[in-house]
């Protein structure tokens, strides 16, 4: 414990990536009607703006849309990504996720294996429309260390900006990830 307390994970290498911002990345495929359907069915949100063409045409969105937080999940495994992340699933310690925080951001040189999602701050501007492409860019806004009960925790604050391919803003999020 005494040694743990002395560990400082905020090394010069970590400090060097604070402020790093990715280029705009585009989701591998346009927003699909079936993808939206599975989303709102699993959310149990039957709002007709997501599935009723006639209703959607009469709204200010003008067409079928996806729920406001949908862009956060638009970056799926591309068809041409042949590396299967589940290839490691036989490892008893494999948790099902990779350690990369965001596409286009450098990996964090921090030797902590536990990761928790601390929460989000969202600002919404518009709904994504079925058929359009979603773009995102991300930045490490801040990385700092806190002392937890079980040892040091590193708080990683990531800003994500989402827009439609035509430039229309969709949403902005601040996400705090906790590594420990």
């Amino acid at each position: 414990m005494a040694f743990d307390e002395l560990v400082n994970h905020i090394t010069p290498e970590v400090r060097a990536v604070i402020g790093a911002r990715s280029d705009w990345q585009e989701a591998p495929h346009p927003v699909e009607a079936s993808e939206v359907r599975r989303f709102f069915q699993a959310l149990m949100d039957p709002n007709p703006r997501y599935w009723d063409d006639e209703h959607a045409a009469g709204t200010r969105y003008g067409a079928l849309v996806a729920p406001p937080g949908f862009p956060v999940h638009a970056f799926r495994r591309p068809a041409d990504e042949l590396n299967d992340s589940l290839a490691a699933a036989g490892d008893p310690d494999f948790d099902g996720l990779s350690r990369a925080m965001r596409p286009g951001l450098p990996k964090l040189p921090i030797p902590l294996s536990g990761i928790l999602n601390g929460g989000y701050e969202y600002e919404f501007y518009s709904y994504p429309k079925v058929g359009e492409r979603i773009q995102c860019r991300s930045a490490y806004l801040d990385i700092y260390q806190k002392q937890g009960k079980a040892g040091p925790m590193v708080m990683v604050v990531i800003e994500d900006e989402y827009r439609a391919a035509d430039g229309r803003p969709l949403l902005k999020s601040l996400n705090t990830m906790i590594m420990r």
Partner: protein
Amino acid sequence: MAETVYFENVAIGDDIPVLTKGPMTTAHIVRWSAAMENWHKIHYDWRYATEHDGLPDVLINGSWKQHVLAQVLSDWAGETGWLWKMNFQYRGMNIPGDTLFAWGRITGKNQRGNYGVIELEIGLKDQNGKEGSPGTATVVLPLRGGPAVPYPFDPAALN
């Protein structure tokens, strides 16, 4: 659809209609995980969740809970208002068997420009009243007889 909510109809201390989800089961969790292509084992591998990670059970996805909060707020704002801001912390875990109640209470209201800006306290309580995702939100509503809230929403319209 819900009736239009105008700024003038809203009072500090009012509760917005509660949105209930559940009781939640492992089937609900795996349906969401599959829709999101989220393969994190704490959501479907009971042995991994309990023995490896020391959790009480498999967990209801935090990613799902955030959209429930967005839903209760955007349902209330309706097609003439706009859910502008929403923040929350993941403080509590939820497991199969839980029923979740998304709620919001109005804590502030201000007219800005031609629009009404409503501040809310929000959260997601379980069947025992335990709060697991506390946060705040800001919803923009039209004034009675005023212009529609711009879409796409532009915060500069409030100046």
